[in-house]
């Protein structure tokens, strides 16, 4: 007598899937039971057409009850249980028929291969084939399982493993609207949790999985932790539970916690390949690339795949090989033969601190994070990324904090950073190289401060002493200024100081983590205390001038600079000249600039900034010939050497080009003018400045259509530049030309497929609309219809 198999399933609105599902089973099963829980589509008709017995069942939010209803209807000897979005892999289906002949087993695990789209898949094992016995029934409202009942009644010895694969499409975003499915599932799960009757580990694990799918890692983690408490580490779902718990920790930025947990679980599951990859992920997030590389290597060397572990093989969508490739450029080329402590001063920098820490992860042997007050998440982030935290009492001197760091640092060298800075990763090799055979006591490195997030070519460079040999007797004195170089020079002589070609990026200006006004007041307060204590020291005055200048208080800044000037007496430093000159320029006292800059340039002939301001003042005074001479010299010199002078970007390149272009335009020499604008635009950071006046020239002097040709001929037709030109054209009331340019930018976006550039297009689009709107309001202030659309423009701020 042949053994009969009944296929049992429940269905609701599955017309997309059920046909393929049933067809895949037809050659193996003798009866098909479909319990329809309220379809409003063609599901029952399709099922009937394929020979199924269809029963309607009133849905009461309980998957188990519905499923058990289908089991009641089955008359076969065995039950194959499937979901509508599954299919039997046709190559392996015949094993089903062999399995049901066996007398040794009451149930079988089948492989369920979850197809997740983009070739991504996870395979689990699940009991789907079992004898049709009344005691084998489902339990749990969702992720219902029959295995409990089978374990209880038959014991694990009578459950076999079968090489049959069910292909599951239900989590393939290419085929299913997943988010809707998840919300429904979580709703059911929460409801179920309330009655607590079926609270078991596997169940909590599934709740967590649903939360992960929704991106709610905190909630997922809570469920995994609960699940872990009641889970036997040997049970089938324990390894994937551990895996997902670690994924949550990593997603939540809790790298240190994850590593602690990993240390324990790796002892439990030493051959669990994916755990090494998770370890690598933690290290990568913290910038510790060599450690990550070690972990990946271990993962690769653990090829044996224990069937207990879910086969994922990828971590955050990347294979070990991809990870390896990704971190390769960051690995140290040469071993370092010194120990490095990194000291970071930070306050409320949760947005930046991770970037800062990551930039030194590879080279730091110890990281000290020093704060006095901190009210945001900075400390947590830093702790999780491996920093040692030091919280000091409120102090009105940064010197105190920095000296504390000097005392507590260990190793051979100390690197100082602020929370809103990072080391340029390309310079790490130079740093190691420099320190490996160093005979110096301290190094100045280049601090590059950016002014605007959108334009990386706009910055100011200066040399700061940040690398210090860990020696007794060195200390900071000023409450604000980083003056350790003075201490080094005092103790070891000027020759103990040198320069390293290492750049620190500083994002302080445009990423405001503290109210600017507050920082400014504090700095002025500290400096005034400094200058009271050391009334012969010009440095605090000079620094105060700088702070005032940056706040736009040029008159007051000039007063401070002049006071510093007096204190210096004869040996006036170049930076002080530059500060005074910049104040005078802002105050439009061009005569005085010309006078002062002549003296300064004689003393510091290679300080380009001075020459530039001289030229700028001449231009404004109408001394075109002198101006031209200055600007041409600026171009010859290029940027001033950062080791000697604080220098702004562009003064040796695009700024003088733009000014020369203005100058030629004044003289009516349009060709020459354009040539200079063009040169300016070709230099990084210069385009934003040069393109608008260039556009003006084309709009007023030529056919506007030629602008684009010109940009193309000079390889300036980037999407960003065309958008800049479009905005400039609209500002000149040339709307049509503006739109034509914008349209070209759009075409270019489509043809080049350079979709990251879309934000420029969007920004130009909203700028054009917003300019029209502003103009409309100027002429019709208070018009109600115009007011009613204001909201649209306020929403676009974040573009």
């Amino acid at each position, binding site marked *: 007598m042949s053994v009969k198999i009944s296929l049992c399933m429940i269905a609701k609105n599955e017309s997309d899937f059920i046909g393929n599902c049933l067809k895949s089973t037809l050659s193996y099963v003798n009866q098909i039971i479909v319990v329809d829980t309220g379809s409003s589509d063609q599901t029952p008709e399709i099922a009937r057409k394929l020979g199924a017995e269809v029963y309607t069942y009133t849905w009461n939010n309980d998957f188990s009850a519905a499923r058990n209803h289908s089991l009641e209807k089955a008359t076969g000897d065995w039950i194959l249980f499937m979901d509508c979005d599954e299919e039997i892999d046709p190559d392996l289906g015949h094993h089903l028929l062999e399995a049901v002949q066996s007398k040794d087993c009451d149930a079988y695990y089948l492989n369920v291969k979850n197809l997740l789209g983009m070739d991504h898949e996870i395979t689990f094992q699940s009991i789907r084939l079992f004898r049709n016995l009344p005691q084998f029934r489902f339990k749990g409202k969702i992720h219902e399982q029959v295995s409990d009942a089978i374990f209880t009644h038959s014991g694990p010895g009578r459950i076999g493993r079968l090489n049959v694969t069910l292909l599951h499409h239900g989590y393939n975003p290419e085929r299913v609207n997943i988010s809707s*499915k998840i*919300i429904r599932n979580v709703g059911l799960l929460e409801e179920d949790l309330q009655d607590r009757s079926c609270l078991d580990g596997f169940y909590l694990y599934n709740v967590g999985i649903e939360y992960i799918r929704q991106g709610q890692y905190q909630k997922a983690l809570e469920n995994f932790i609960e699940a872990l408490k009641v889970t036997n580490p040997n049970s089938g779902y324990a390894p994937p539970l551990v895996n997902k718990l670690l994924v949550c920790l990593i997603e939540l930025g809790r790298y240190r916690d994850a590593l602690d947990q990993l240390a324990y679980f790796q002892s439990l599951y030493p051959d669990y390949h994916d755990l090494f990859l998770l370890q690598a992920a933690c290290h990568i997030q913290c910038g510790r690339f060599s450690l990550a590389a070690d972990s990946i290597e271990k993962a690769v060397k653990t090829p044996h795949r224990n069937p207990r572990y879910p086969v994922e093989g990828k971590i955050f969508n990347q294979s070990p090989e991809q990870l390896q490739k990704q971190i390769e450029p960051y690995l140290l080329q040469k071993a370092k033969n010194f120990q490095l402590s990194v000291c970071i001063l930070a306050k409320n920098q949760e947005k930046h601190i991770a970037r800062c820490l990551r930039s030194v992860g590879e080279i730091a042997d110890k990281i000290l994070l020093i704060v006095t007050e901190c009210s945001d998440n900075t400390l947590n982030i830093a702790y999780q990324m491996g920093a040692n935290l030091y919280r000091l009492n409120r102090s009105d001197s940064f010197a105190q904090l920095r000296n504390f760091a000097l005392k507590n640092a260990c190793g051979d060298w100390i690197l100082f950073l602020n929370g809103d800075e990072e080391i340029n990763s390309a310079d790490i090799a130079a740093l190691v190289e420099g320190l490996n055979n160093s005979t110096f006591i301290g190094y100045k490195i280049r601090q590059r401060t950016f002014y605007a997030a959108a334009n990386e070519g706009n910055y100011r460079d200066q040399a700061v002493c940040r690398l210090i040999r860990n020696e007794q007797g060195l200390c900071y004195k000023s409450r604000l200024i980083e003056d350790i170089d003075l201490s080094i020079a005092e103790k070891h002589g000027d020759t103990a100081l040198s320069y390293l070609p290492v750049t620190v990026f500083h994002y302080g200006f445009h990423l405001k983590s503290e109210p600017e006004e507050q920082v400014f007041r504090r700095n002025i307060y500290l400096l005034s205390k400094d200058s009271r204590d050391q009334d012969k020291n010009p440095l605090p005055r000079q620094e105060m001038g700088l702070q005032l200048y940056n706040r736009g208080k040029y008159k007051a800044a000039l007063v401070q600079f002049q006071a510093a000037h007096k204190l210096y007496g004869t040996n006036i430093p170049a930076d002080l000249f530059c500060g005074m000159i910049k104040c005078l320029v802002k105050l439009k006292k061009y005569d005085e600039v010309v006078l002062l800059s002549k003296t300064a340039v004689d003393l510091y002939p290679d300080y380009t900034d001075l020459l530039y301001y001289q030229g700028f003042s001449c231009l404004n005074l109408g001394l075109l010939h002198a101006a031209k001479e200055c600007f041409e010299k600026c171009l010859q010199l290029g940027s001033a050497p950062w080791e000697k002078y604080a220098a702004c970007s562009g003064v040796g390149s695009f700024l003088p080009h733009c000014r020369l272009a203005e100058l030629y335009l004044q003289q009516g020499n349009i060709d020459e003018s354009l040539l200079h604008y063009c040169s300016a635009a070709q230099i990084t950071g210069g385009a934003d400045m040069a393109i608008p006046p260039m556009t003006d020239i084309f709009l007023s002097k030529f056919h506007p259509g030629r602008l684009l040709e010109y940009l193309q001929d000079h390889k300036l037709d980037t999407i960003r530049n065309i958008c800049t030109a479009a905005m400039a054209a609209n500002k000149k009331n040339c709307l049509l030309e503006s739109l034509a340019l914008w349209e070209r930018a759009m075409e270019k976006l489509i043809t080049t497929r350079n979709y990251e550039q879309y934000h420029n297009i969007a920004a130009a689009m909203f700028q054009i609309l917003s300019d*029209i709107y502003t103009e409309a309001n100027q002429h*019709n202030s208070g018009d109600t219809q115009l007011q009613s659309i204001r909201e649209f423009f306020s929403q676009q701020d974040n573009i």
Partner: protein
Amino acid sequence: MKWLKQPLISLCMIVKNEESNILRCLDSVKDYVDEILVLDTGSGDRTPVLAQEQGACVFFGRWENNFAKARNEIKQQARGEWIFYLDADEELPPETGRSLRQLAQQTKAEALQFSIVNYTSSSDTQKCRGLNIRMFKNNPNYYFEGALHEQIAPSILRVNPSAAIVCSGLEILHYGYSFDHPRRIQKNQRNITILESMLAENPKDDFTHYNLGVSLYVGGQLENAKRHFQLAKQYANKKSHYLPALYRNFTACLVDLGEYEEALKLAQEGLSHFPDYPDLYYLQGQIYSITNLFELALERFKQCLKYNKLNPNYISMDGVQSFLAYEQLADIYMHQQKWEDALQHQLKAVQNGTASYTSFLRLGLLAKQHFNNSSDAIDFLDCHLPKLRPEERIKLLFDMGEHHLALQKTEMLPQPLPYEIYIIALKSAIYLKNWQRAKMFLSQTSPLDKEIPTLAAICHVLDKDAVKDHCETDQLDQLLAKSIYQKDIPSEEHPFAPLFLDFAFQLIGFDDFEAVNYFETVINPLDLPLLYSQLGQRAFLRKNYNLAERLFALSLACQKKGIHYRWFGLMNVYTGDKLEGIRLIRHSCNLENDSQNYIFLLTAVSDFFQHCLRHLVVNCPHIPKVHQHLLGLAGFKKKLIGKEEIDCQ
């Protein structure tokens, strides 16, 4: 009626001033119930008398702004085994009536739900369906609760938590929500008052917030409606029976506000709870269609078609899972100029239930577009619309521009022709400049019929001889000359008489060349640009963009003013030359800094951007921000001109 044993079904109604409805209602139900009890809460008309004539026992009571109270009052009088209740503006379809007794005798249920079919507009196609308990066992412990949108279910479930409340599958027709219902606005205002007082007592009642939201939405107070929907959603229980309706109506409200991004999200959230609710897919489809995301719109409308058996728990617009979705699909294919697909889908819409004339006309026009010749199109229509009445067929031919055929077909109809057909025949004759026939039709109608004087005047203008016999020429000339300007309230902005504008608009439709000649002779030249502009705006509102463009071109030719530049510019935007249109409107802003000029400019420029972004989406559908920006631009445009979409075809 026999009173030997307990009557089976007692119909209970409360009424006030329903003389226009009560007969239709009682007539449809009186044969199927055993007693009719009516509580009149203060009618000033013949309602109680009419009810009595139909065999109802009429009681009188005071109206205390509380529906539950009134319903419980009349319920107490009922002796039947079952209570059945209706409103006066409802009607039983015969199938429902015939099944009523059998259902009452056989069911094991404690209460029965009926499907209420609400007619929302004058055309029969717009129907909205919802489920409501209308029949329940007569038990003194069951009583209505809630001053408005009173409910019986809570008390039934309190008495017996496992009481069976079953869907009867039967329909009740409800006319009260029709937009053209005379007392709709008044009733709605009354409801708002009641709901507001209910909220004053119980400010966190989610169902009241929901109902107030609906009433405000129907009354056009969108911002207020949104606020109350929001509160309803905030307070609502996850299992509330009206939750699907809340998602649907809240989304529709956001769509009307132009807040497309939020509307999409809300609908999506709704779908996560009710994944087979076609109305939510439909609303999403509409949003995507408005924002030019046609591929996504197609997908949503196709999804609607899947759920062809409507879940009775959902309030649903009739047709969203069939003919309405098909029409939307046809619309999108039209936009994409896929005429074959558009035609096929419009045909499916017609075959799947829509019986409205507009649908037929759309089918006809699409057929004409697709076949590119009239005779094939007409064959197609004959083949697929075999049941069309001859009058409808003639109207269809006329509206398709087949004047010759329309005229021909009228001759085959038996005399006398219906008035409407006369007018069509007459207009066809005018189009064809067949003055002899025109004269004949004119002579067969009474000159007092409403459209005749205008048409006669048009004949007169286009052909002096045509009306000789019908009316004195001089008289007509005088009449026309006199009627041009407003007499009662002359205003600078609207100097023309409405009747004259009607006449002028029709005239220019028949023959613009002659019309312009005529206007130049009778109108003060200073007024001409304004006339053309007003006629142009009328053509614009009727979506006759080509005519509008011609008229605005005329107004601009007469007078170089901002208003003419801006309208002519906007027409250019509509008819395809977007940049030229923007140039013209920009010029209008340069001439005059009027805010309207700028509104037009912003509209045109956003339209241009929308168009380009749409192009980008076609080439690269995967930049997420673009969708967001398209939604934003569409909402912005809607706020600018109160109109969703510039029809580019």
